[in-house]
């Protein structure tokens, strides 16, 4: 088994609405989409954001776009108007996702 940094296979962008964060995840190569679908599960993403208080993750699959949309609840610790975090929008969190290590085959 070998592991690979998600950042090698995909790119991402974060957006916020209140205390809810959305992260797009887009495969660099369309053929890697099934691997991402297998590895980057709702459970793994929830675990990745657990230290920030995330309570639920929903993954929407967009195979035609080679992409996914993750919606993560209660992860912004109050959101842009309430958070103590320097990045209250959570805009940098796309790269927390891309820092995940996944099995590459």
């Amino acid at each position, binding site marked *: 088994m070998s592991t690979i940094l998600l950042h090698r296979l995909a790119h991402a962008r974060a957006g916020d609405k209140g205390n809810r964060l*959305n992260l797009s995840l*887009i495969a660099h190569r369309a053929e890697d989409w099934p691997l991402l679908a297998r590895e980057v599960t709702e459970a793994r993403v929830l675990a990745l954001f657990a230290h920030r208080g995330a309570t639920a993750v929903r993954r929407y699959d967009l195979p*035609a776009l080679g992409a996914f949309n993750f*919606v993560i609840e209660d992860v912004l610790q109050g959101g842009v108007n309430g958070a*103590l975090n*320097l990045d209250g929008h959570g805009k940098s969190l796309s790269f927390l996702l891309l820092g995940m290590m996944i099995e590459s085959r």
Partner: protein
Amino acid sequence: MTLTPPSSTLLRIGCGSGFSGDRLDAPGPVVDALIEAGGAAALMLEVLGERTLALAQRERLHRPEAGFEPALLDLLRPILTRCVAHGIPIITNGGAANPRGAAAAVLGLARELGLPELRIGVVEGDDIRGTDALADLDPWEGDAGAVLEPERVIAANVYLGAAPVAEALRRGAQVVITGRCSDPALALGPMLAHFGWAEDDWDRLAAGTMAGHLLECGAQVTGGYFADPGVKDVPGDARGMAALGFPIAEIGADGGVLITKPAGTGGRVDRQTVTEQLLYELHDPAAYLTPDVVLDITGVAITEEAPDRVRLTGARGRPRPERLKATVSLPGGWLGEGEISYAGPNARARAELAGRTLLERLRLLGLEGQARLDLIGVVSVFDGDAGALREAGEGSPSDLRLRLAFASESRAAAERAAREVLSLYCCGPAGGGGVRTRVTDRIRTLSFLVPRERLAPRVSLLRLGEAA
């Protein structure tokens, strides 16, 4: 008329600003490209954030003529004369808390520029303070359980749709100024006015809304907020990034959507940049709720037709929601912040001691509020308030910065907490430097849903060169 007749088959919509802090010189090259292309065109300027509107409402309490986007005239000054001369209407939500005040200021700018006449459409009715609608709100699902105390409300605004924008354009407005409306409506409005699409032509409204969504953040679809050196590069390195071209959408009468940017500008428009922006701030991709239509992008296909020209097909629409989203702003207490740098040998241990000292001081002083520490250079933005990543984080960078954030209902407590960081100069560990402190008046926003029939959007036309 400012638009060519509805028989025209193509409408170009440029975006010259994607948020209230955007580059002030961005609209110029977009306007130049629209003029050079010829044909029907419009320019949108999106400048209104949730917090911006609440701050504007507060500003208006002190100065009744204020309360609109402070940079609006700076954005318009270089382009207004050219847009008017070439029949390119400008649509902006820069009216914020005072669209009428913004219109008066733009009429003043027109006089300063020597324009003989100008017609400004003003869209109002988004502000629901003091109306029955405010008493009839249901919390949006993301803010379930929220209770509203009307007497504490700073701002309460409903997201209006594209219809009032289209009405203003049909009545001959050369500039349309709104308060809160959905961002895509700034683009869909001119499409409705130009093509005469029916208000239940859901698939075309969906295509137009998708185009507006791609445009609404300006350069975020043309290579801004995208570069990741060695992975996703923007051509020309810093030169390209410094001269990003803002987007132009080419819309067909049938709802065709093509995204491009002015020739000779920096940035890139391709499958990657377009996909990132298509999914930006989306929840369910099958149901993107707007006041005008429910947009489904799950069947969208993206085609690179030529360099920097990307076509999108397959947007589907469903009937618009019966209830519209309203954002309500309330006082959110105070945030005190302070930072101090530690560098060189043993920097991390000194910074950690400073952090523990601050928490102990807050405890001794009995300040009421919530504190958080960051070790900028070890871990900061990824961490939770409890500091789990910081405590687990290894390594001792030789140059790092300790940050204290303290939220309190009390201004005095927030100020005192920030001052404690300053006091580390003489009372903290060795070698601390570069203290900066800041105290911010916070605003809390909640989202609610309002029945559509409670609202009464209004369009007025203000004119320069004729009696008001």
